[in-house]
């Protein structure tokens, strides 16, 4: 448990981490993407017959998901490595700041920047969607929430990997985990895998350890009006939150023991 002093330092680190990230013009990417989204949606709207609101939603959620994951990987890879390179970590943890508080503060600060990015792009996406006649569905909010969870999980994964490998390797491994996490469910139903039970067992084991991002992808359900039960939504939400907490605990444990040389 964090005491009052640690909690106040956690807030300070989160605030200045977010401030530094925002001032580093990471959100310029968001604004550019927002503009591109407007242009693409207009073009798609002009050339689409029948379902322009679905096209706007498809473009919007796709851009939102990819840009959030891109920003998460970009920021998460430097979370500790840049601190060590610039020696800023030394100046922080030479103050009465626990290592666990430092890393948690950094994660919270960067997560808040990710959430700002998601809120801006979501607002643009929804304005376009409603602007071309789309109707509100509660699944849209769930889809945006799951995109935010996916991006935060990617941030946590890349920062965890950067604690044990180099910055470049952590980015490459994270992208691989992202791709596999989205495709593993589809791969499992292939005849090639079904005919090889040992390979299937290996994929099952993978799913127990590494994140199944496919669970967080509600876009297909939303675009093709496939209903999703509330038990699936809540259990997936719980899965995402628990998985995130587990990675945070592991990161704190590793950082506590890491030689900062």
């Amino acid at each position, binding site marked *: 448990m964090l005491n009052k*002093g640690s909690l*106040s*330092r956690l807030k*300070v*680190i989160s605030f*200045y981490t977010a*401030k*530094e990230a925002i*001032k*580093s013009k990471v959100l310029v990417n968001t604004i550019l993407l927002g503009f591109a989204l407007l242009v693409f949606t207009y073009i798609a709207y002009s050339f689409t017959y029948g379902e322009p609101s679905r096209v706007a939603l498809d473009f919007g959620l796709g851009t939102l998901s990819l840009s959030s994951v891109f920003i998460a990987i970009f920021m998460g890879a430097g979370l500790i490595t840049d601190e060590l*390179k*610039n*020696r*800023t970590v*030394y*100046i*922080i*943890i*030479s*103050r*009465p*700041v626990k290592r666990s508080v430092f890393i948690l503060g950094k994660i919270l600060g960067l997560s808040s920047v990710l959430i700002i990015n998601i809120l801006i792009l979501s607002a643009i996406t929804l304005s376009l969607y409603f602007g071309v006649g789309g109707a509100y569905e509660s699944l849209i909010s769930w889809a945006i929430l799951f995109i935010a969870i996916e991006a935060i999980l990617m941030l946590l994964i890349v920062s965890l990997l950067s604690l044990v490998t180099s910055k470049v390797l952590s980015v490459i491994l994270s992208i691989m985990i992202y791709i596999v996490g989205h495709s593993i469910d589809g791969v499992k139903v292939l005849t090639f895998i079904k005919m090889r039970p040992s390979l299937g067992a290996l994929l099952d084991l993978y799913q127990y350890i590494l994140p199944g991002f496919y669970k967080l992808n509600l876009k297909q359900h939303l675009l093709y009006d496939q209903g999703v039960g509330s038990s699936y939504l809540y259990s997936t939400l719980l899965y995402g939150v628990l998985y995130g907490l587990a990675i945070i605990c592991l990161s704190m444990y590793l950082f506590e023991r890491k*030689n*900062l*040389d």
Partner: protein
Amino acid sequence: MLKLHNITKIFNSELFSQPFTALRDVSFEVEPGKIVGFLGANGSGKTTSLKIAMDFIRPTSGHVEFDKSLGKNKTDILSQIGFLPERPFFYPHLKGRDFCFYMGKLLNLSNNEISEKIKYWAPRFKIDFALDREINTYSKGMLQRIGFLVTLIHDPAFIILDEPLSGLDPIGRKELKDIILEVNKIGKTVFFSSHIVSDVEEVCDNVIFLKDGSLYYEGSVDKIITENVKPISNIRYKDESGFKSIQVKNSKKNTEIQRLIQQNFEIISIEHDKPTLEEIIYNVK
């Protein structure tokens, strides 16, 4: 204030490379109220020792002990320490003032207290003009100055500086050395590493000298100089053709002076051949 007990540090960073011993059974003490210089060539183990003292890296064996006056637990102790790492870069997109507030708030200082400290120290470090600029526009010397400011912002009892004078011009070095002397006068203990021996000699009471990862000397600056004084005197005198100088053994000094006086030469000065700390250090190298 700080004691390192039998510290050994072996790095096993590369998979197939030989382990590298950075420190071998190093023990030393930084006494309260003193300015202590930490000398040694590049790679001698100074920064590794400081990182171990600050718990950034763990020693292979040995332990670190801080004076009980600094506090009982790690949080209390760190609240009383001001640490400045070597060649800091800080957060490039924050303004200097933001960075000062960041560091101050980590030490639970109020906004007023931080503003007061900035008002006092920023002009002293000649960084006040740049506080509202982003840190990525700062020169190396300016980074060092803002680093000093945040190191002193919470009025620490023990100040640890890793190569604080590198990157500064001679005027900047003089100003910062004056501040080191000033804070020491009001009771602060200062421990700083440097490879600029003359700076250490100028301001330090004690010196700790590492060579190839081992402790070579620990003690007062005066003592090491006295121990290395040669029994030779330099006599400067003036004859018809102008100023001249001779070196004589101390045992023959009086005889030589008498000879010069008898020849009606004017004695200008008689000095013991006192080496500088730099000369002593270079000799041991």
